């Protein structure tokens, strides 16, 4: 099964060309998590005057955003709303000050766009050495591995992990 998993490009793997996309890949997202978490971010301009968003991100953090954006593949028209669907399902009734605060909602939208962009880049960077960069949209979230790395599985993978 290990031959079916390739790791992050920052890890010391031997980069060999793989013809068939692996069933799973491990991508390290800790840099993104660090960058967009309000308590650790150096992008403080994103979190100025949006207290309801900072409070929300204590319970729905960058890890949850990454999980949500990788729930559905890009071919599914619902994928652009996945984060909001998850967020509403969990916190529509409990975090009303967030939903009423326009700046917070729109800033979260910007953060989600930035996170999606960086997640795409990270997955692509992991696959590029193996000549599989065109498959970057085919991997969906499976589970977290350690603090900031995620195990992503190919959407057509037949292997049960």
């Amino acid at each position, binding site marked *: 099964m290990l031959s079916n998993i390739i790791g992050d490009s920052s890890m010391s793997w031997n980069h060999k060309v793989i013809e068939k996309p692996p069933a799973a890949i491990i991508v390290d997202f800790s840099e993104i998590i660090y960058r967009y978490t309000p308590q650790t971010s*150096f*992008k*403080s*301009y*994103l979190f*100025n*005057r*949006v207290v309801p968003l900072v409070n929300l991100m204590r319970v729905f953090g960058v890890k949850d955003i990454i999980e949500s954006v990788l729930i559905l593949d890009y071919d599914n028209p619902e994928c652009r*709303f996945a984060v*909001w*669907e998850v967020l*509403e399902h969990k916190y*529509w009734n409990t975090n009303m000050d967030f*939903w*009423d605060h*326009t*700046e917070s*909602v*729109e*800033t979260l*939208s*910007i953060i989600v766009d930035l996170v999606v962009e960086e997640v795409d880049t990270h997955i692509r960077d992991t696959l590029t050495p193996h000549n599989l960069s065109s498959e970057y949209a085919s991997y969906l979230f499976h589970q977290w591995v350690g603090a900031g790395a995620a195990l992503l599985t190919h959407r057509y993978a037949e292997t049960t992990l």
Partner: protein
Amino acid sequence: MFNPHQTLEYKSLSDVISEVRDVFILDITQYCYYLPTHFTDILNPEPLGVYAPNRLKPVFSFENGQAYYTANAYKARQAPDIWNFETFIKSSSPIYSPQGKFLCQAPSLAPYFFQQKCSYNYAAMHVAFILIYEMFSHLHSQTYIGINLPMSALRLERYVKPEYLQAVLDERISHPGHATIAAEAYNFIGRDRYSNYRLKFENTTLIIEKGNDYRVVEYYRRLFDELESQGY
């Protein structure tokens, strides 16, 4: 000491985001009166609940088995005893939510404040809102369209009977007021197809706020990012 922030038009990103450049107010009710039966027949009835006169949303919802408690039932930790309009309107005791929150004082003392049916065509109003939202969301792929309703409220299947859903999606059956609403909305949009918009559906009134151009927001975001990385 030179401070680049002092020369900027906006002091923070939230200023750029929250700026409102124009507002358009539209009462959707006027497009949902006297609807033809061929359209009303395809719509689902309003959610089960207790409605107040001239309010679109139910004040108490009985959807998905939602039920409430009278004070006695709640204190005695019995099963909820308010589960439909009849049990609600006959209650002479205060009503509590399952979480113990006080909701209403003795509905039977003022029954004229409550009704079983919505004053408006609940489904037609929401279908009209969805059509407007769809119109705005297709203006440009990068613009942000904010709404004050949950995304689940934008699902047509909640308001249209399943056998007619495809016909509505294919626009073989359309909302009678759609063309007029669209014309008014496009008139408001004008040349600002790249602006962010916020749609607020308050009771029957639709408030559309025109925000900044998404390119302006992105420009300032990059500018603030740049300034911050330079230590300002």
